[in-house]
């Protein structure tokens, strides 16, 4: 009994660490923009909105990738603890995706629905990003224990497979937003291919 209790005690501490790490991008952004990088260094920010949009977009994508790597990590290492943080990381992905989308709604479009609709429908790269965010909404809503019980594990799992198309759309959004084809989005595309192909391979074997 004793070692098990000890193990449980470690989890809240680890959990708060994960929370702190997950909120770090917000703290860095706030420092760069409002305090001129007093604590985190960095140059004068010429275009704070661009910085916000870049950071929140990257954070949303990276947290989604982290969420996707929890299960393979468990399979490879046998460590179960990480499983507890899968929903938390997924929620942080949605949190940053929402900051990203709303910074566009508010700063770029001043919340005017007409121009937003026009922009989203006319420009493919905005459309795929917007769709990815829409796909994440039901996942965030049903992330509570109550919803898991209500839907039942099987149906919940099936619904949460929406994370796969969302991840693909996010990477497409990243690739299409650059003016000329750049290396960085392709690297992230490569990571996603590995994460998805690994699953396919495991499923085929079992």
């Amino acid at each position: 009994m004793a070692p098990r209790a000890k193990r449980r005690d470690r989890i809240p501490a680890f959990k708060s660490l994960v929370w702190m790490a997950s909120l770090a991008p917000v703290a860095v952004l706030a420092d760069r923009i409002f305090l001129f990088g007093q604590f985190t260094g960095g140059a004068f920010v010429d275009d704070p909105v661009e910085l916000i949009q870049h950071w929140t977009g990257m954070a949303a994508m990276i947290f989604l990738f982290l969420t996707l790597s929890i299960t393979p990590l468990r399979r490879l290492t046998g460590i179960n603890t990480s499983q507890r943080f899968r929903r938390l990381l997924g929620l942080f992905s949605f949190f940053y995706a929402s900051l990203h989308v709303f910074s566009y709604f508010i700063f770029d479009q001043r919340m005017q629905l007409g121009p937003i609709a026009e922009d989203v429908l006319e420009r493919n790269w905005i459309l795929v990003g917007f769709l990815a965010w829409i796909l994440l909404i039901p996942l965030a809503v049903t992330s509570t224990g109550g919803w898991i019980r209500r839907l039942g594990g099987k149906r919940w799992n099936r619904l949460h497979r929406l994370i796969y198309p969302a991840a693909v759309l996010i990477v497409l959004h990243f690739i299409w937003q650059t003016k000329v084809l750049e290396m960085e989005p392709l690297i992230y595309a490569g990571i996603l291919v590995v994460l998805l192909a690994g699953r396919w391979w495991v499923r085929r074997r079992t």
Partner: protein
Amino acid sequence: MSETRHPHPSEVTPESIYVNRRTFIKRASLAGIGGSLVAGGVWARQKNAPRVEGTFDDDLTPWETVTGYNNFYEFGTGKSDPKKNAQDFRTDPWAVEVTGEVREKRTFPLEELIDGLTIEERIYRMRCVEGWSMVIPWNGFMLKDLIERLGPTEDANYIEFTTLLDRQQMPGQNSPILPWPYVEALRMDEAMHPLTILATGVYGKDLPPQNGAPIRLVVPWKYGFKGAKSIVKIRFTKRQPRTTWNEAIPREYGFYANVNPDVDHPRWSQATERRLGEFFRRDTLMFNGYGEVASLYEGMDLRKYY
């Protein structure tokens, strides 16, 4: 609006200090912490800060941004590349070749070319075709004064500007992103308009290399890419010259490139712009707010001649 008379910014406070304070105030008040953090003295300074005469809230863009956020692909495509890569750029000695349909066809040392022309301060909005903008205190002279001195012939309908081609000093020219050297041009009546200047300085100092030293074109009612930098050749022509961006992607960048909120770039809207440092986009103004140039384009379909 064409001439401004107020204390030069550098006479008031070192610009890096006051603009940073003002930027800070803007951002702090947006965060709702302005009142508690900002002392009265700073507010007073904000009121005294120079403004463009007769217009809305056109605060100067900070020196750091004007000289640190540049599109000058000769020094790299990133916004901070030019500042990084242009520091050793040699601008002295500098010569400018004058050629084409003009009386005095020869190569001038820069000092001789601009000798005796009146350098004044012009605070202009600068709207980039990418959708961002700045307000910049240039120092320069009216292009028309130089043109009158050079004496173009009757056949001179256009004036063309060529940027230095030097693959050693300008590393960006080693990649084929654009057909080098960079060439821009104006119709003669655009060039003769009193708003059109050749700039040799900014914020009361010599142009830093990343801003197009030692001499560059500034046409405030056109998208920024029309402003050829580090000019080594001025050619007067009868026919419309080929210009770099228009040649590279004609569907997206026209010869005229007048700022126009009603004519979208194929990939993005031009109706609004982000003034660098601000959070909310503002409406883009026809001819970038310089409506006095409208008569130059009377009867022209600006959708066709974008």
